[in-house]
């Protein structure tokens, strides 16, 4: 699988039995369809949060191809204090998050135990991703 941003082959990272696809050049994360639900547990709530943001905020970001089917991915904006713009495959192959976006979504998206554990997990995996928003800006001019 190729990173939709830098076209490098992506790695798979497994920690404590949980896996995600990662680009080791830009630290973007790909989640296959259904994996975010597995990470979060509560599907209904996640879905509401994931599409709560103003779509206008997404216009600035460049569009990207789905790493699985090459179709142009759509943009979605989350709710919360600092809305995150992420990409989704129109053919439901999965979701793409730029550096730190996933952590930000999980931190804002839910307060229940399962998600908190996942946030912990992500902090373990990416110890250097402290302030996702600023880093994202510098990575995607």
């Amino acid at each position, binding site marked *: 699988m190729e990173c939709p941003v830098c076209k490098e082959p992506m790695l798979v*990272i497994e920690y404590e039995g949980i896996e995600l696809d990662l680009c080791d050049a830009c630290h973007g994360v790909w989640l296959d369809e259904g994996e975010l639900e597995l990470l979060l547990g509560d599907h209904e709530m996640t879905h509401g949060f994931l599409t709560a943001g103003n779509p206008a905020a997404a216009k600035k970001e460049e569009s990207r191809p789905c790493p699985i089917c090459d179709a142009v991915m759509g943009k979605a904006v989350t709710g919360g204090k600092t809305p995150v713009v992420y990409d989704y495959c129109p053919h439901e192959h999965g979701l793409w998050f730029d550096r730190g976006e996933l952590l930000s979504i999980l931190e804002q998206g839910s307060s229940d135990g399962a998600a908190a554990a996942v946030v912990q997990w992500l902090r373990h995996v990416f110890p250097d991703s402290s302030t996702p928003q600023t880093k994202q800006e510098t990575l995607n001019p």
Partner: protein
Amino acid sequence: MFELIRQNKRRSLLLMGFMLLLLLGVGFAIGFAVVPASEPLDMGGATLYLPWGGLLGMGVAFLVWGVQALAAYSSGDRLLMAAAGAKKIQKQDHPRLFNVVEEMSIAAQLPKPPKVYIIEDMSLNAFAAGRDPNHAAVAVTAGLLSKLNRDQLQGVVAHEIAHIANRDVLFMTMAGIMVGSIIMLTEVFFRVMWYSNIGASRRYRSRRSSRDGEGAAKLILLVVALILAIVAPLLAQLLYFACSRQREYLADAGGAVYTRYPEGLASALETISGNPGDKKSVSKAMAPMYIVNPLEAGQRAISSLTSTHPPIEERVRILRSMGGGGSFADYAAAWNKVDGAGAARIPASALAQTAPVAARAANAQEPMAAITAAAAAPVGQASKTGVPTPSRRATPEATPRQRQRDTGDLLRRMNKFRFINCDCGIRIKLPPEYAKPKVKCVRCGKIHEVPRQP
């Protein structure tokens, strides 16, 4: 099982004979339609017309089937597995699947466990192929491995092993090829007809010959040939499907008997039918070989004549009506209960094959299944006349996430990924395209050498 196998064999041979006749008939019809002329032979006063075209067509039809059948037979399971895009795996690639296959081979008393293949597809399906129990193979999709728990997987594998033990696999292969050949021949025939317009060939013959009675007879024969060419593929498929459906029931019964746990297969079938991931690479002729028809997946299959498989709901209902029993007789009784008395077509000989036995209890890790099974059959307790089923310790059950990861790793290993275990607990999986010589662990920052391509 010997009686059952013998009866199966007899029926198979009969059906094969009939299909062969059909194939030759189609060959004749096509040959006759293309070259209807026959030179009159003077045989001691009587004039005989030899339909050379028809005979040639028969020869070609037989050859078309024979070559494919021979190739399939001599290669055993390999050809079919290759056609299905399945890859052979070793024990270390997926120990759980291998163990389940070996357990079921023991239960079915196969001379040796079949080879194990994986189909890189996220749909849920499985099939068996091979010449005989000594040259057999079982293939399951990656989706099946990641979605089913151990009991369900065991049920599906037991169903496939039952196909092998019942000698279904060779027959299904040969008959499948025959159906394929008939379809192929008629398709070629209609294409030839379309482009060359057989009537036009009359141009090169004298008008007179077609005007007399002999010409009319030929025309009638031509019409018969056409009708045969249209009807034969349908007839062949009907025959094949009718027979394969019967075999599906028998294999379901086998699956319940070998595992002594009908609920495993029942819930597996339910899971499979709830996941209509269609597999488009499946050819029509191979469809009957899968545990559920991949081409009918998704659409609620009504019990029609053209179904290769009985409707899943019905199969599940029969398995769940076995009332805690785990023998062929229990399956037959359940079948009669679901479909009305007299529905069960399990050979009487098979009914005497297994002692009256109780189904075993489910694994403790599956609370719902355990409750249903416990309600049906008290643990370890069998009917007074029967032989008790050995009760077994609960199986450690992999979580859905673990199953998904194991399956993913299996596919990655098959696709030449390289694996690095970092001391910090991170496991890095590198695709074959990853060309950099070193990789940095995201968590602890340790630099790892990338191993050479395997």
